[in-house]
């Protein structure tokens, strides 16, 4: 296959057959209880140097309790898929966890940009859409998917994509390689103990991310009985055999919103957003991440009254909770 042009970016390439073998051996089809706390889930499945993917962002239904635990455990040298990200990258960077970013949207804040500008963190530029598509390729068990984005730009040149001629129409087409993250963290609305999970509302690529990833940690607002899952199979977003760990984490997306359930915590986000230099970010992390030893302690730190107000502050249930 004649490659007309190749992006020069470093790629986390997948061997489709090696990934298949993993999914065969390491993803049990047994209905085993996967409920655990965020500490043991992160200890078990997030390792230094891992490629990490998350769905949505710090602001909206992000897996924030799990991100905080990753920082708490001082994981190192993570390579992340930053699709549709906001303060997630900033937090992981502040915790010293980041080595490389596959950039859809790099995230926000001077701290982050300074780290990139100084070379402490390496970027490989893609786009939100091509990162989502790379997860879809990983989910579909194919080495790549074609797209008509990236073409002609420097984003392409810095990515790990390739341009070839489509053999059917002879037009140029861009191919993006599959990504199969070592671990995915996804916050869901409801799940059973086996990992059957429901996400309500629009989303980035939760199923693609779960299917593509070698390990999947779910945090969930609510635990359901499997009977409940089976009653409405059309609402299941992720089936259990993709999932390795289920963590019960009410308000797990705090300080962001979990749409339909609670609104965002504006005051907390202000603290976060204004942590513009390293010192302020350290302080934020000291207070909200290292301080509490678990998500349970974090919730106490935020306070029940505040959490209830956030729940009341979400005025839209319609469409999410039917």
């Amino acid at each position: 296959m004649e490659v007309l042009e190749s992006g020069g970016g470093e790629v986390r390439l997948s061997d489709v057959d090696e990934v298949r073998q993993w999914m065969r051996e390491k993803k049990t089809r047994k209905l085993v209880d996967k409920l655990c706390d965020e500490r043991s889930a992160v200890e078990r499945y997030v390792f230094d140097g891992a490629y990490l993917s998350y769905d949505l962002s710090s602001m909206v239904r992000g897996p924030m309790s799990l991100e905080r635990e990753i920082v708490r455990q001082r994981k190192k040298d993570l390579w992340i898929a930053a699709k549709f990200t906001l303060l997630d990258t900033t937090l992981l960077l502040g915790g010293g966890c980041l080595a490389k970013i596959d950039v859809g949207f790099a995230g926000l804040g001077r701290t982050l940009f300074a780290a990139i500008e100084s070379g402490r963190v390496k970027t490989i530029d893609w786009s939100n859409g091509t990162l989502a598509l790379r997860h879809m390729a990983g989910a579909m068990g194919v080495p790549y998917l074609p797209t008509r984005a990236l073409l002609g730009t420097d984003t392409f040149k810095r990515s790990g994509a390739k341009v070839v001629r489509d053999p059917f129409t002879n037009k140029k087409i861009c191919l993006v390689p599959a990504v199969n993250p070592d671990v995915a963290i996804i916050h869901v609305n409801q799940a059973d103990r086996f990992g059957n999970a429901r996400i309500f509302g629009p989303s980035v690529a939760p199923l693609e991310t779960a299917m593509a990833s070698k390990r999947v940690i779910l945090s969930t607002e609510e635990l359901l009985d499997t009977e409940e899952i089976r009653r409405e199979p059309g609402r299941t977003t992720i089936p259990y055999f993709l999932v390795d760990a289920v963590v019960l984490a009410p308000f797990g997306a705090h300080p962001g919103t979990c749409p339909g359930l609670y609104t965002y915590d504006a005051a907390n986000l202000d603290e976060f957003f204004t942590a513009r230099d390293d010192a302020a970010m350290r302080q934020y992390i000291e207070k909200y991440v290292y301080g509490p030893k678990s998500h349970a302690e974090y919730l106490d730190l935020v306070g029940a009254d505040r959490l209830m107000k956030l729940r009341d502050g979400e005025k839209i249930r319609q469409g999410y909770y039917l």
Partner: protein
Amino acid sequence: MKFTDTELMICLAARSIEDSSTAFVGYGMPQIAAILAQRLYAPDLVQVYEYGAIGPDVATPFRRNMMADARNSRRSFAWTSMNWTLAYAAAGFIDFGVLGAAQLDPFGNVNSTVIGGTYERPKIRFTGSGGGNEVASLCWRTILLAEHEKRRFVPKLDFMTSPGYLDGSPDAREEAGLPRGTGPYRVITSLATYDFEPQSHRMRIIGVREGQTVDSIKDQMLFEPLVASRVETLAPPTADELRVLREEIDPDRVVIGRPE
């Protein structure tokens, strides 16, 4: 009535979006322009967000940084996810894309990645493409928004994040593999509006703000734009537009700011 640069740009953008069209909308100014358009000029505009909302009736007041929350997603025609919204764009269903730009060249190419230094060690790092590359690649007509600062209008970008007309040659986009018939449609700044001259694909001044002239605009750019045979004077925000912007959409002035 006094107004901010941002308010002007939002109003100009809102007036450029057709009713009963689909528009892929980015965060911030683009979103507010789309909401304003929907409230005043294009009630049946279908906003499409990369995170999966198709045709939401966005709740106001607008809240910062909350793309994908319930207020931005409610009462949609459909909820889906990113690979699908981008499929709609790729398949030709999305009429407009509305994007902010940190740096622009004469062909409407956009930089939102790095400025200065090298790619590995830039002087300034931005957020990167986000959904911008897809929007600029796949939607039919892209509207680009940029605060009018001289340094933003450069003959050559430090980094081309999202494609405009590339090198401007007649079929540059198609030859690169981009969908036929797409490309930047308007550039809207705080001082002027531009289209793209059909042959050369170069930015062309078609409107200037009251108090500005074609020459004063050119003075505030690092490349020489074309000038349309007829350049209109841009109507300032109307009282109605400002009322909706300030009272309904952004009463906290998070995006639109306050006039001095």
